[in-house]
């Protein structure tokens, strides 16, 4: 072995941070940034909602399951934020993006920010596990289809993240599906909870498939996929799952939510206040 010990000081100063090398994006940054932020923010915000179950799960195994799913989603967001940052070129790190943006700068689907107590009855504050399971099923099925499509992205960085996320999301979906069937095909009470959750969440899923100029340009550039192209497959899978669970697929709704445009529900401000407060009280804190 060579003796490198004499240059420790110089080398420590030189040692590159252990970061992954992010392949440069050669397309239009003004399209790629919001396109990727929508994906990353949805993962982060849903992760935060799921993390609220920690210590409050209906049984220990489910407490652990949701913490693990939250962790996977957080990981997906953490893989994407440095990519967004590299494309933006302003030197913002993942903490800047997660903790120092304001509500209108977040581009997640509105459904991800809805409180765990659900939206079926106004003012409810008790967490509703059926609502969490139904949301996870609907979101995971969409996310799985999108991640599968994104493994073919012409941008290698996104394709690589998608290849990892596909495996995780498939497992999240299986977990949600198991419970959805158990609830729907369970007792009268669990069936009623699951049906109410389904009726209230499905309309919010319209936003998954709203294809705007950013989606079109991202698909055109080979970066992304047209969200509306995933609708038929999503619907088919979800309806099969819901039938298996002996539940009814709700009638079509025209609800149009706008989280991906930065216009959020009344719940988002409270979520961010809690998620960001520590970082804002102690800027730059590490532990």
């Amino acid at each position, binding site marked *: 072995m060579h003796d490198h010990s004499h240059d*420790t000081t110089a080398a*420590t100063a030189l*040692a590159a941070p*252990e*970061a992954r090398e992010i392949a440069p994006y050669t397309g239009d940054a003004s399209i790629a940034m919001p396109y990727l932020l929508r994906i990353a923010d949805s993962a982060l915000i849903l992760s935060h909602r799921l993390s609220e179950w920690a210590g409050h799960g209906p049984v220990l195994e489910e407490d652990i399951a949701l913490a693990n799913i939250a962790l996977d989603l957080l990981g997906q967001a*953490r893989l994407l934020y440095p990519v967004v940052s590299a494309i933006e070129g302003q030197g913002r790190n993942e903490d800047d993006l997660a903790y120092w943006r304001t509500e209108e700068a977040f581009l997640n689907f509105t459904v991800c920010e809805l409180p765990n107590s659900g939206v079926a009855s106004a003012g409810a504050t008790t967490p509703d596990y059926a609502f969490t399971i139904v949301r996870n099923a609907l979101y995971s099925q969409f996310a799985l289809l999108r991640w599968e499509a994104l493994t073919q992205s012409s941008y290698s960085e996104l394709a690589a*993240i998608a290849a990892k996320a596909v*495996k995780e999301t498939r497992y999240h979906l299986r977990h949600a599906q198991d419970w959805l069937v158990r609830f729907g095909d369970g007792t009268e009470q669990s069936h009623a909870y699951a049906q109410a959750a389904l009726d209230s969440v499905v309309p919010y899923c319209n936003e998954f498939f709203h294809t705007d100029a950013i989606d079109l340009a991202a698909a055109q550039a080979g970066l992304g996929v047209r969200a509306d192209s995933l609708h038929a497959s999503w619907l088919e899978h979800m309806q099969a799952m819901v039938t298996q669970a002996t539940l009814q697929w709700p009638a079509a709704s025209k609800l149009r939510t706008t989280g991906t445009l930065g216009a959020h529900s009344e719940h988002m401000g409270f979520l961010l206040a809690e998620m960001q407060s520590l970082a804002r009280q102690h800027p730059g804190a590490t532990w």
Partner: protein
Amino acid sequence: MNTDLVNADRVAPAPNDLETVRAMLSHIPDPEIPAVSLVDLGILREVRVDERDPLQLVVVLTPTYSGCPATDMIRQQVRQALQASGFPNARIELQLAPAWTTDWITPEGREKLRAYGIAPPSGSSALHDTSSQVIRLSPKPASDGPVCPRCASPRVEQLSAYGSTPCKSLYRCMSCREPFDYFKPY
């Protein structure tokens, strides 16, 4: 930065340095499952010389689950080990593609997991991917699920889809009645 000054003290890694580093890193245990090493798990992908800079030693790691908290810990341990063994300016690269898979866990790693009480992932990860077409070159095994790491019984049932770490789920053996962790195919 004056690159001449920087390079003045640097020495090109010798071929046996790569072996030394690989051997040294193969002793680093996984922080969550200390029975197996980074090499056993297939997390250490490569130790090589940078193709653009012959003086630069590069250690390539791949993360397992996207959110696995052990990833940061592993990087720190590798950094410390490199520093302690005289390679303080080695570069650590995190490589995402190809995505890590449990298929990369070595036969030795699988045996160590079993001895530790964790059932190793069964079959190939593709067998668990319903969207993929798998061409089988060998007869289909009786079971694609785990077997009990204690008594080798295939009579097992899942208790929970998730376990104490992202990579595991919880099972119990119907033969010897013991619960055990199963390393999920990924």
